[in-house]
């Protein structure tokens, strides 16, 4: 197991180097001019040139790149111009917000999609199967910002059940002392149930939005994979041996059907992190997605590079985690590794 982890980590090094080079070049290839953007509304050409020199953007590209790599080696990702803060600090502060939202969204999605998929597979072409198809198709075809705005409109504006879409906490609460950066966990650690409830309330709508969006791949994959497994010989044997339907479905079929679902979950998680961008905009959620987009709009290089790099590292870690999970679920994987 350990050697597999090490081997996977080694393999990740070239891709990370590639990411560093490509993001650097891509951000430089953006058409905008950060110096002109940040020179302000009344800037003259000289003012823009002064700012360009201050930002070091008048240096040739290779010099800028060497400087960037040197800083990166020291863990310094540079400073964002849009927010004025060091990128590393910002990402550290914002990543938990995005991760918490994505995880809660994913958990919701799993809780709905997996049972739905299993039910649909055990009763193909029944009412529940069609319902599963409709729900997942509708979920994936509605753009997230639309679902988000509709939910806000109904549950906040019309009904008043949901709290104001003002980010992670209502204005009149302050954040729990940071331990993990996840408000739900931190507030439990602090024993502060009021904040726990408040942050949970804030989470419901955005997590629902994300969850609805990701129902489709999980439900469809569960259904397809369950159907395949249920049609296989060993399930027939189990049934013929007179095992209860519950044992057949959960002990025999579901465990075997889980592998492709886990792979899908990995993919869904990474693509939810991307879909986050729009949800964060709608719910004023202080996550890394909105941070990166704002930076991109302003041609602010450092945060974009930092964001892509963080995402790359997270993908590598996530894939590693999934591989380890495989081993736990399916002993055959362990042997091959």
């Amino acid at each position, binding site marked *: 197991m350990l050697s597999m982890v090490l081997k996977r980590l080694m393999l990740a090094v070239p891709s990370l180097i590639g990411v560093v080079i490509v993001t650097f070049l891509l951000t430089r290839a953006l058409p905008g001019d950060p110096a*002109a*953007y940040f020179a302000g509304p009344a800037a003259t050409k000289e003012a823009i040139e002064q700012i360009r020199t201050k930002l070091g953007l008048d240096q040739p590209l290779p010099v800028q790149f060497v400087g960037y790599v040197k800083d990166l080696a020291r863990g310094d990702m540079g400073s964002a111009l849009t927010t004025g803060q060091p990128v590393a600090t910002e990402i550290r502060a914002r990543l938990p917000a995005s991760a918490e939202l994505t995880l809660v969204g994913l958990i919701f999605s799993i809780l709905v999609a997996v049972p739905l998929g299993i039910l649909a597979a055990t009763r193909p072409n029944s009412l529940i199967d069609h319902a599963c198809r409709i729900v997942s198709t509708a979920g994936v075809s509605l753009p997230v910002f639309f679902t988000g705005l509709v939910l806000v409109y109904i549950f906040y504006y019309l009904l008043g059940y949901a709290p104001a879409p003002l980010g992670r906490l209502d204005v009149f609460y302050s954040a729990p002392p940071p331990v993990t950066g996840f408000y739900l966990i931190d507030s439990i650690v602090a024993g*502060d149930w009021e904040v726990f409830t408040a942050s949970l309330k804030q989470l419901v709508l955005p997590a629902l939005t994300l969850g609805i969006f990701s129902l489709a791949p999980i439900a469809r994959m569960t259904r397809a994979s369950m159907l395949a497994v249920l049609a296989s010989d060993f399930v027939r044997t189990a049934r013929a041996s007179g095992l209860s339907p519950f044992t057949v479905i959960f002990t025999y079929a579901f465990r075997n059907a889980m592998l492709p679902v886990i792979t899908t979950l990995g993919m869904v998680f990474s693509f939810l992190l991307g879909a986050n961008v729009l949800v964060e905009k709608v719910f004023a959620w202080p996550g890394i997605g909105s941070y990166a987009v704002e930076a991109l709009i302003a041609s602010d290089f450092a945060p974009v590079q930092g964001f892509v790099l963080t995402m790359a590292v997270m993908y590598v870690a996530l894939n590693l985690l999934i591989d380890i999970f495989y081993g736990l679920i399916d002993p055959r994987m362990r042997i091959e590794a």
Partner: protein
Amino acid sequence: MKRRDFLKTAAAAGAASVLPAPAVWSPAKAQSRQETLLVVSESGPNNVDIHGVGTNVPGYEVSWNCYDRLISHEMKTLPNGVQYYDRDKFKMELAEDMNVGDMSATFKLRKDAKFQDGTPVTAQDVKWSLDRAVTVGGFPTFQMRAGSLEKPEQFVVVDDHTIRVDFIRKDRLTIPDLAVIVPCVINSGLVKKHANDKDPWGMEYTKQNTAGSGAYKLTRWTPGSEVVLERNDAWNLAAQPQIRRIIWRMVPSAGNRRALLERGDADISYELPNKDFVELRDAGKLTVVSTPFSNGTQYIGMNVTKPPFDNLKVRQAVAYAIPYQKIMDAALYGLAKPMFGAPADAPTQVAWPHAHKYNTDIAKAKQLLAEAGYPNGFETTISFDLGFATVNEPLCVLLQESLALIGIKAEINKIPGANWRTELNKKVLPLYTNVFSGWLDYPEYFFIWCYHGRNSIFNTMSYVSPTMDAFIDGAGAAASSGNTVDYERNVKGFVDLAFTDIPRIPLFQPFSNVAMQKNVSGYQYWFHRRLDYRTLVKA
């Protein structure tokens, strides 16, 4: 039970039942809404020091409220009841007396003014701050230069409480330029502690911390999501502000900002699309204040250095082809002041912005285009800034339709906000729409930026005319020497010339729109168009 009541009861119950626990364990106190103002806007500051590199406009708002200046402006009441800054009347802020001489102005400082850390405000602090503004480069330095404030030697400490500003030339804009946001007075003792050789002006410190004497201080700032300002109770330059805490949240979605206002959760917001403001105003649940941008217009610009727009008749044809009224109705929902269609016999005013006499007249436009040698029209592009797409996009589509009627086939070129200034700076866009508004509300100030042969970035048309320059320079000189007759002649001269040569076609004066709850009052319109928290009152 409503949520607000619930919060109140919960807070009261919490306070009554629980003994004061260590602060770490009870950070979630629901705070009284009464003394707190919740502001929501699209974007927040990137730097709280207006002298910083690339400080954005929301950053100006923090600076305005957290720092004091030597002088400021009095307010006047507009016919619609809005409090509007009075360009011509100055109010003492940190200064208690201003004595303007022939070639210098002397300011006596208030002796009881203190910075937020308790140290007194001295003339040395004022000099250090003004030196900083003219030295650091970028926007602050250029703004200072607009009022002929260029060198540190101009600022002389007479004694601890007296500072003299020497003029390098006579300029009517010098004193007004001391009342804008840039010449704020910074606690030099505090900032110097955080300065070093690489950063002699302590810019890294002031980027994140306010070091002023102002009525508010920055207590929490999460870039991109929240700014919290607390009242400085020791502030004594005017009546104590009523609002104790400002919570300013960034809500990127305009629809949600509107929902927050309508549900009564947010107290005040601006930067909403015009359509929303009109609907909010008509619904009558909120107070909506619309005020024209001082000294600002949105216009159609044309690059006069290249064909076809180097031809006066082509420019006139465009001016007759613009669907002015449709733009007012469909793109702006009426929330703007028209700058077109003045009666043919209306005399030129000594004022700017000023309505021109062009109207939509397609037949005349066609005829002018034929006379110019383009009977079949030509192809071009209309560019606009996507950052302001809610107005710009419908505007450009209407213009495109109208130009097609006279044979001009225009393609629409949408430019992202980040690139807009770069593109303007290249001065190659043939036809575009843009907004310019000057902080200092003087016609010649606008014209120096936008029409003068110095060709600043805002002379987007690259318009150069010696006659125009003579009028603009003449007006500046006449204003400084107090020669009213000469001044008026020159201003009328450049306004007339701007309309006969028509390198840019003014469309309208945009409105600055603010929506607030009915229990919020005391809004003031300032030249910078941001909020002044000091006078806001929540009933």
